[in-house]
């Protein structure tokens, strides 16, 4: 087990190296330059380029970046002068991660309950209602829901603050709900279909034949088995949520990393683009690793090696 995890972590570092390389050279293809301010004289631009090391040959820039990144130095932002990228990410990522984690917990728990309720009441009113809710949840974009929530609970019935971060927990409620809806809906659909399959399986028939109640059958047999495929869904979902949502952060004025990532692209802030890409890739791979470990814990047929 530990050997396997170590192997996966080494693989993760190698994959990150590939991601860094690909992103680095793709950015060179991007048209335009970071220094577009018309007030800048050619001398000043040359000065800036030499400060950031952009006057060096490409291979040397690449090598410098790799060496820096290996030491945890992801360069200095072009937009915010003198702000190291690691500091920028260090400030903004925890905010996005907290919001994402809250949304993940709310979304997945809601999805598990609604999916199981839907499956157990297959084809009746409860299933139908939950089906409509989850279809809406998947098809309504989160920013529309965000705006609706702001209108309802910030304006019509002002229950929660509609913007900002870090002053009170109540600030996090509306963005969490807005962000949680889509994962809740997706999880509901997935759990429903897995649970229906599990409930029609032979081992559930046998569990019923033992005299277990419907509730015991679900809790002791069906849930565990239908969780195995659901986990593979939640892993990548978690990576996406924890690394921030541009639109939700924009609507609720949350200084997270999602917002930062998007802003850094038009301004050609190469170090920030690189840094956030690395963070997202690493997060995704760690989540997939965690998913695999959890799957092996739940499903005795899976052995990690």
């Amino acid at each position: 087990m530990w050997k396997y995890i170590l192997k996966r972590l080494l693989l993760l570092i190698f994959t990150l190296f590939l991601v860094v390389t690909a992103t680095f050279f793709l950015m060179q293809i991007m048209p335009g330059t970071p220094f577009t301010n018309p007030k800048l004289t050619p001398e000043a631009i040359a000065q800036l380029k030499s400060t950031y090391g952009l006057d060096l040959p490409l291979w040397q820039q690449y090598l410098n970046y790799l060496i820096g990144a290996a030491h945890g130095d992801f360069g200095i932002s072009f937009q915010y002068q003198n702000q190291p990228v690691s500091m920028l990410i260090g400030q903004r990522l925890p905010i996005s991660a907290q919001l994402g984690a809250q949304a993940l917990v709310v979304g997945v728990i809601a999805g598990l309950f609604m999916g199981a309720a839907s499956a157990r009441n297959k084809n009746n009113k409860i299933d139908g209602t939950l089906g409509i809710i989850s279809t809406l949840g998947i098809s309504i974009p989160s920013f529309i829901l965000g705006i609706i929530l702001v209108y309802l609970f910030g304006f019509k019935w002002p229950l929660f603050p509609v913007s900002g971060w870090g002053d009170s927990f109540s600030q996090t409620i509306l963005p969490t709900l807005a962000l949680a809806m889509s994962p809740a809906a997706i999880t509901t659909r997935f759990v429903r279909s897995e649970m229906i399959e599990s409930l029609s399986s032979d081992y559930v028939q046998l569990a019923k034949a033992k005299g277990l109640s419907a509730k015991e059958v679900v809790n002791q047999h069906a849930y565990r088995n239908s969780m195995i495929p659901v986990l593979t869904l939640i892993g990548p979902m978690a990576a996406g949520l924890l690394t921030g949502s541009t639109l939700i952060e924009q609507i609720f004025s949350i200084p997270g990393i999602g917002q930062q990532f998007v802003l850094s692209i038009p301004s050609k802030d190469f170090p920030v683009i690189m840094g956030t890409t690395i963070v997202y890739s690493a997060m995704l791979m760690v989540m997939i690793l965690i998913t695999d470990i959890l799957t092996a814990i739940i499903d005795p047929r899976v052995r990690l090696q």
Partner: protein
Amino acid sequence: MSNPILKVENLHVNFNTYAGTVQAIRDVSFDLNKGETLAIVGESGSGKSVTTKTLMGLNAKNALIPDNSRLIFKDRNLLDLKEEEWQSVRGNEIAMIFQDPMTSLDPTMRIGMQIAEPLMKHRKMKKVAALARALELMKGVGIPNAEEHINDYPHQWSGGMRQRAVIAIALAVDPEILIADEPTTALDVTIQAQILKLMKELQKDTGSSIIFITHDLGVVAGMANRVAVMYAGKIVEYGTVDEIFFNPQHPYTWGLLNSMPTTDTKVGSLVAIPGTPPDLLDPPTGDAFASRNEYALAIDLKEEPPFFRVSDTHYAATWLLDERAPKVTPPVQIQRRWERWREIQGQEAQS
């Protein structure tokens, strides 16, 4: 022998589907005596499995059972039970062995725990005590080195071993009735014999009654005391195992017996009953088997045959037994069986 523990009376089971009402069980009645093994034999779709599911109260939600159907067990009609009451019957008084051991165990639960579950449910045993009893049960069904394997998961076991575990689950709480739904169909032939032997030994120890569902008459011979032959949702003939094997009266039973390969069967000459079973969405009038029956009489197409008595224990629903029916000559193999029957009868008369 006539001490029925279970009486099935006029059982009808219909299923409402989009295509219409499927009449899966059409008036089935039989008794199950204490300590005996009753085999229910028939081809796919004859209603064997629906019968077992009905006995376990595990039919799908679209099943409709008319009020005059009765399953009398311990002075009550099981069909009147509420779901909670069923839960104290299932796996406790009536238990079931499933067909496919590869899929009927929960892949994510340790086998010992799966055997312990009914004990914890019905005997209110604590986990430790239930697992200790599970270990005994595992030894009882012939799991070697049971101590080492109690914490195994199903995928670590072979099919035959898993079926032993399924049997241990069914026997955990000493059920009075054990329903075995084709318990050996999914197993290798060599393993089949072991499992059948095990079931017979366990029945001797526990004295439970077994309803043995199968399509394999070869398995029936060594297992059952009595046999009921089902066709298109009805019982067409029932009797003791000797009566069914050596004095069969219904042409469908003849067909089943003849389709059984024996050591004399020539290579490449497997016998089959021609045609397919009728559509139970719209069962034919008269004898449902008539269209596949080379001995069918004109009346078979019009009127359903009642049960004709062959002996006190042997009845068959075929117009051939009516005194007005022409005498037909059954297939050669059946004639040989009848000869053997006369020999057995003669020997019994002498002794």
